[in-house]
């Protein structure tokens, strides 16, 4: 086997100061009275061929980040570069061309497949959109994709409701693969599945990555899933990135108190080992009215006076290990 060219350090996707706010309307005339800052000033990069895991509790903005990158929802600021192209500045035709390279696998395998389309049509839709007019060519591609994701070729004529959740997720993956993309957003692709099916799908995603060499942005709320699949991990809290590091670095030495709290909640399959569980006090505050200073300070076990006043900068505390905390 020829040695693969090392592209691991080339940045494929660069996200800079991304801001996605949702308007809150009220009153008789439905004026915008406030903004929900779902994603507030988030920056990170995804390198060629790697898997970047994005974790956080539900409502922290991780899904919004992934949708914003793909321009599926409007954003209020920041920029995203894909292979040097500025995604938010693209015109509709350029954006359509770019979509060949950026795909997405959804969380819910039920609502993400059109119930009225046979599986073959679902997988071939992207080909049709991107100008593959020849039917037999499309059919061949569908057969190939089905085989790749571990389904039978004759499944192409069946309808989504005839499949189980895991099989449906395979169909969703096949749809994303059909255009041979370089970057795939996996938006909690296994959280709706049974635990026994989860590892099958995760392994499929890993195998496909090994074969094709694309990059993943892997969004999840389950740290053990992220640990299993990611090369680097970003931790989000209330619309902000609080820590970002290579997997080993993060899981061996989490720096941010929030990350540590999350880690302590991972069950360890070893009855003799005891870990101290850090239980966070209070609820996640509303992103409509986030706390001043460090957004985590009301729940932080080690918070000091400064935390409520000054917002901590996101700095590189160890090599390639970034964190936003005054006390680290």
């Amino acid at each position, binding site marked *: 086997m020829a040695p693969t060219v090392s592209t691991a350090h080339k940045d494929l996707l660069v996200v800079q100061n991304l801001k996605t706010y949702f308007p809150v309307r009220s009153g008789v005339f439905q004026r915008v009275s406030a903004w929900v800052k779902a994603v507030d000033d988030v920056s990170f990069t995804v390198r060629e061929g790697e898997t970047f895991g994005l974790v956080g509790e539900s409502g922290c903005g991780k899904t919004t980040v992934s*949708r914003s990158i*793909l321009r*599926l929802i409007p954003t209020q600021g920041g920029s995203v570069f894909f292979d040097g192209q500025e995604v938010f500045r693209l015109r509709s035709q350029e*954006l*359509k061309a770019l*979509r*060949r390279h*950026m*795909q*997405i696998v*959804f*969380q*819910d395998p*039920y*609502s*993400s*497949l*059109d*119930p*009225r*389309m*046979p599986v073959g049509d679902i997988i071939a*839709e*992207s080909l049709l*959109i*991107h100008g593959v007019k020849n039917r037999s060519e499309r059919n061949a591609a569908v057969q190939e994709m089905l085989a790749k994701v571990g389904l039978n070729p*004759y499944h192409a*004529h*069946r*309808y989504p*409701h*005839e499949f189980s959740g895991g099989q449906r997720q395979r169909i*969703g993956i096949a*749809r994303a693969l059909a*255009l041979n993309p370089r970057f795939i957003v996996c938006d909690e692709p296994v959280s709706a599945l049974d635990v026994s099916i989860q590892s099958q799908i995760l392994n499929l995603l890993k195998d496909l990555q090994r074969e094709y060499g694309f990059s993943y942005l892997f969004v999840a709320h389950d740290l053990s899933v992220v640990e299993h699949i990611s090369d680097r991990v970003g931790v989000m809290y209330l619309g902000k990135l609080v820590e970002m590091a290579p997997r080993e670095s993060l899981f061996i030495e989490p720096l941010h108190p929030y990350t540590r709290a999350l880690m302590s909640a991972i069950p360890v399959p070893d009855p003799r080992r005891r870990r101290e569980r850090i239980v966070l006090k209070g609820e996640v505050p509303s992103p409509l009215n986030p706390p001043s200073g460090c957004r985590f300070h009301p729940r932080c076990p080690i918070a000091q006076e400064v935390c409520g006043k000054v917002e901590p900068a996101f700095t590189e505390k160890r090599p390639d290990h970034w964190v936003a905390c005054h006390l680290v």
Partner: protein
Amino acid sequence: MALEQTTVPPLAVSHTLVLTNKPQSYLDMALARLRRDPLTLAALAFLLAVGLLAAAAGPITAVLGVDPNQTHPANHFQQPYLIPYLQWLLGVDTKTAPTLLYRSEGVPHWLGTDQLGRDQLARLLYGARVSLSIALVAAALSVVLGVMVGALAGYFGGWVDDIVMWLITTLTTIPDIYLLIIVSAIFRPTPATLTLFLGFLGWFGTARLMRGNVLKVRSLEYTTAARALGASNIRVMLRHVIPNSLPIIVVSTTVGIGALISAESVLSFLGLGVQPPTATWGNMLYRANEFVFLRDPATKGFMGLHLLFGPGVLITLTVLSFYLIGDGLRDALDPMLKNKK
């Protein structure tokens, strides 16, 4: 026998099983469910029969030797020939039938004649043509308008949605029969213009339904998936949103045709719809209404009562059939209507 059994490997059996189990689209499942619904099938059969009879009105009346607009003033208010004929056949009453036949110059008027001596059966058949085609064309018109407007409003939202919803709220504020009366008072309708009025005033419900469904479908992830693949708005609309809204539209349209038949009959009954001599079920009742209390000076029997039943029964059964089919379709299409998440 034993030999045969051993030659068939169990694997092959399961393989053929998989192949014979055909892929089932939602449509297949709905049709299978419809086939087991006798009430809906009966309603369908009735409508089919009425439709065929109406379509064949020309040949049928030619065979019977009657014409919908041929007047015989001397032969007005003749009672239906059907009952005396049956009595004659059974030998109960051998006099009435020949007398009736003599009065009508040998032409049997199976359902009697009206105040001008026109054959009621012929008028019913020709009336069915007018009533049904007005309702069907108006329904088609309002579905196309409603689906288009509703889909646009639901998909694009914003000010398009605001304006459409304002228009719909405004127009549904006035009961539709008043709108029709107002429009008919100002522009006296012909069958063609009446169809247009009904169609243009009938799309609000469909539009509202479509808009709601589009909002629902749009929030489902397969439309987001299509956009992520690079599908244009038009493509998302035509390939995903409209097909997934179709079941609910089909149901509402079926019920809508029934409502349109009612609307046409009410308007014609008030004398504001299709004008005589063109027969429709509604204006036949409008005429019949004038003679309901008319009694034969000699026998004291009601003279015009038979004119009341044919159109009334036909309108009721036809509208009922459309409602029943609507209900049946609703049940059969149920899993699709839910658009389950």
